[in-house]
């Protein structure tokens, strides 16, 4: 690894990576408020003053709190008598939440793998365009009982990149740790980007070989180092 194979790849700045733009504000606004206007107002506020600690926002939160304090608290001491009602409510709550469920999409996959470090450059896979948002496919119905699939096509920085398998392994380890088990993960080289495309593809998706690689302490150490920069 001492000798860089590709010294001068094109590099994206960290802030040029594709992101989920509209959600920036949402992350700052936690908490389950059911009221749409509240949420909308808060989003507006964050647009003019981008900090969750601003006084206006605090005042608005205070107002919401004072207005909601009257909602009678739910008691569970007497579970039996309340069972029926609470279950009904729970279903309702669930329904409510189901509407707001965030599905796993390609941006989410991208976010979790784009920050993996390249094994030979001090840069991330996203910055080197090894992984690209448009090369990630997600097939998922959102149904917990159905299989989902993620297909990722990676672009090595040069066609004879000897580390393509290592990069693929890193991505696979990251995704296996971060996706629910119902997902099948397929990692391929983008067509025409590598000299031994078929061989590498085979190796990347061979369960036995991946499992064997993960038994290797040293290899796992290298992978861990790649994953340190994940955000």
């Amino acid at each position, binding site marked *: 690894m001492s000798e860089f194979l590709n010294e001068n790849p094109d590099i994206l700045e960290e802030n040029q990576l594709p992101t989920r733009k509209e959600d920036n504000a949402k992350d700052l606004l936690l*908490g389950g408020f059911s009221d749409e206007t509240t949420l909308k107002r808060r989003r507006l506020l964050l647009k003019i003053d981008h900090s969750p600690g601003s*006084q*206006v926002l605090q*005042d608005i939160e205070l107002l919401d709190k004072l*207005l909601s304090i009257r909602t*009678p608290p739910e*008691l569970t001491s007497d579970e039996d008598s309340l069972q029926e009602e609470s279950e009904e409510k729970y279903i309702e709550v669930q329904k409510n939440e189901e509407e707001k469920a965030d599905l796993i999409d390609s941006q989410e996959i991208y976010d979790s793998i784009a920050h993996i470090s390249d094994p030979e450059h001090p840069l991330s896979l996203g910055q080197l365009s090894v992984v690209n948002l448009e090369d990630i496919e997600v097939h998922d119905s959102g149904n917990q009982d159905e299989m989902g699939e993620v297909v990722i096509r990676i672009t090595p920085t040069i066609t004879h990149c000897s580390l393509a398998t290592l990069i693929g392994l890193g991505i696979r380890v990251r995704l296996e740790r*971060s996706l629910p088990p119902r997902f099948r993960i397929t990692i391929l080289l983008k067509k025409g980007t590598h000299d031994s495309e078929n061989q590498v593809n085979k190796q990347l998706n061979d369960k036995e070989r991946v499992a064997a690689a993960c038994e290797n302490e040293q290899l796992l150490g290298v992978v861990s180092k790649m994953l340190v920069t994940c955000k």
Partner: protein
Amino acid sequence: MTPDQLNSAIVTFMANLNIDDSKANESATVVTESIVHRSIKLLEVVVALKEHFLSENEIERKKALTCLSTILAKTPKDHLSKNECSVIFQFYQSKFEDSALVKEVLEGFAALAPMKFISINEITQLLRLLLDNYQQGQHLASTRLLPFKILKEIFDRFFLNVSSIEQVKRINDLFIETFLHIANGEKDPKNLLLSFELNQSITSNLQNVENFKEDLFDVLFCYFPITFKPPKHDPYKISNQDLKTALRTAITATPLFTEDAYSNLLDKLTASSPVVKNDTLLTLLECVRKFGGSSILENWKILWNALKFEIMQNNDGTENNLLNPYVKDQSNDDIDQYTNSEACLKIVNLMGSQLYNFDKFVFEKFITHILDELKPNFKYEKDLKQTCQILSAIGSGDLEIFNLIISSVFPLFLTNTSETAKLKLLILNLSFFFNSYIDLFGKISESSAERSVPNNKLAEYKDEIIMILSMALTSSSKSEVTVRTLSVIQFTKMIKMKDFLTQEEVSLIIQYFTETILTDNNKNIYYACLEGLKTISVIYENLVFEISLTKLLNLLPDYFDENIRVNDEENIQIETILKIILDFTTSRHILVKESIISLATKLNTVAKVSKSKEYCFLLISTIYSLFNNNQNNNVLKEEDALGLKQAIEPKLTQIITQESVIRDDNYNLTLLSNVLFFINLKTSQDVHQEELDKYNKFFISEGNVRILEAPNLLIIPYVKVLSALKKTCVFPQKSTVIVKTIHLLRIYGPKMIETEKVGYLELLLVLSNKFVPEEDVIKLLDWEDLSSTNLEVMVWMTKGLVMQNSPKSSEMAKHFIDFLSNEEIGSFVAKLFEIFVVDISSLKKIKGINWNNNVKILYKQKFFSDIFQTLVDNYKTTVNMAVKCNYLTALSLVLKHTPSQLVGPFINDLFPLLLQALDMPDSEVRVSALETLKDTTDKHHNLITEHISTIVPLLLSLVLPQKYNNVNVRLIALQLLEMITTVVPLNYCLTYQDDIVNGLVPVLSDKKRIVRKQCIDTRQVYFELGQIPFE
């Protein structure tokens, strides 16, 4: 003092020496005092010690001599006569042969040397003795220190205040030789500091240094570059830096060292270690500074060649560094902080100006040589950055040099180009010359009464520079972020340059910035422009107001979905404009005031349009933030507030009372009422009484509002205004008002709109806090009525007392705690406990204001400690689960608002409750318990480690989506799991590794992305637990 007393003092001294040194010291002082009072003579002491001096026992001899030396050291310098000095001196001289006593003898000499009546003969003998008979290598560091001290005393006594030139001449050479002898091979840092200091004293004060310069230099330079790591408990507190600086000062003390210093230092410059290099460069810098022009005359070529190499090799300070608008100004004069390249440049700069002042002809040669060597770089575009750095560094030396450099360099590279890469380089390189302008002529300041900037060559290129920069900013494509940002940064720098730009040019730049900030979404450019506008506002606030702010304000449309156009850009959002206004007006008086007035006027128009709730909300929030952000820095003064009151209050009151987009929107109504609060808070207290009467008439007694007759939303502005006015105002109707309010709440309570109700309750709070006397408030409380409305009424009124730390409040808190055990109302009261400690923004403690309400800073702490123990005890004694739950709920809601440092002392009692609270059927209680647990985890590692076996399973149950595990609960539980690995020892964590990694698998399918994200992070930490890092 009798001989007996003397003897006993001596015995005491010797007995206590090295055992109780303070006691030994005491008895030495006693003896010295008798000597000073002439009741005994020093010689008598010697005689009294005689027995001991002759003892066979080495230790006894040492102690005896120490005794004499100690007494001698305490004796005033002019006390001993010439004769006495001589006798004592000879006595010590005779003892020098006793090899066991060297240290003590030296101590004695060190005490004798500064004596007034010691003769030059004796000093000569002393120096000889040291030179011939003292072997520095055979002694410990503490002994070796003494000769240095002696020399220093001699130096101070004879050389510093030359008493007789004849005398000094006699010992001059001997002194230097002796110094060289004792300094040779020294290794102890403390001694070295003295050695360096003496060396410096010698080279700068003594004669004949010329003859010894090589030796004197060698005894210094053999230590270079000095490194020293202080031991842990170093009593002398000598740092590496002290030694470095002392050595550097000594090396640069005399121009006699010039030859040796330059050749040796340049030799060291080839070192690979950056630290050594830095030390070398800083020393070189000092040399150039101190040795002056004549030294550079002969050496500039070798210096230049070495430095050129250094600078050209150097590649730090990449463009990212320059792109950051927050990089601090580089007028950093602290010499120890120069980086290597900065130091190189500084040396080149000094060389230039020293030569220039010393000999213009040689300077000419110097500059021509450099220009000839560097000019080809422009042609081949090689090392341009470094080249410009060098040239601008030389240029900042003097006006004439500056002009020379500019006129020979600018024609070489200042040509407009459409090639982005070239343009970027061009702008980057310009910045170095701007810096050199600032170095030479200074920065612009508000009071520009200082000397004006003379004509200079850079001014001739001004138009061209402005043209290139504005082209770069306005004509390059949006994606050229770097070029555009650079151009903004250079514009900003030009603004800072004293007397460089005219008002018109500044106006033009303001206009560019305003347009760019509006139309560009890139964060870097946004902040660069913002920084630029702020910088300009410091000097040209009026210009910024006229050109930028007015434009921004005028852009605001009357309708929310109207298109805003700037140049060819459409779709500029109202939010963007408001954000810019908020961001750049901060702490600028005119800008803030004018923005508030204009926005309020705009609000008045917008509010009259239907469906403008959102737009109004934005405007109101902006006005509110303008007030709030500029609260503490005293930007808005009393007279401004009065102006604002007259200008906008009527407009605001009008829309509050008449427009439904304001009145019927909770947020708009509350925030706008808070704006009224700020206006009144800022006005002079003299008008408060008048205002109070006015508002009372308007809202209560006259007109058609009458908020006390029937529920009315306008209670909210009334309450906010009331909280702003000073508490000493006369409020004659206060008792009627409070009674009527309670009455109103009791009658209409359940039917009121929530917002109205909160308003009336807040009125009760304000009244009980600052207008109605405590006893009256207590009388009004009806503890029998357990209706929810009455409970609320009582809680809010009690809050008024709690906030002023009233002595009655703890008693009343007990009442409420009793209610918690009531199965019917307990759970509701538990919820109400949060009211006691929740912060109402209009009743917050505001810095510098204590006249508007009675809020004590520590009221929460007092309240918490009032209720804590009772709640915990009650919790433990009760068996009813529902009631237990009430106690916990109340406690955790109060905890939520209590600063965590106040909770610390209670944590051991609290902890078990916290864990149980995690099981409570209420998500808010769980969140609050988790938050407290997070603080606890941070501060009480042992506590967490002890309970890890309980905590982990609990947390694992909280991360799953269940009824009371809302997003917040799940998220914090996951964060807490992650945090545990940082505070709990690894061997404890490892036990749970598998449980947690597996237990979190279902969470990977959580509905909320933010929860999944945290889950991935948490799992990752556990995957890597205990893994040996790969290197």
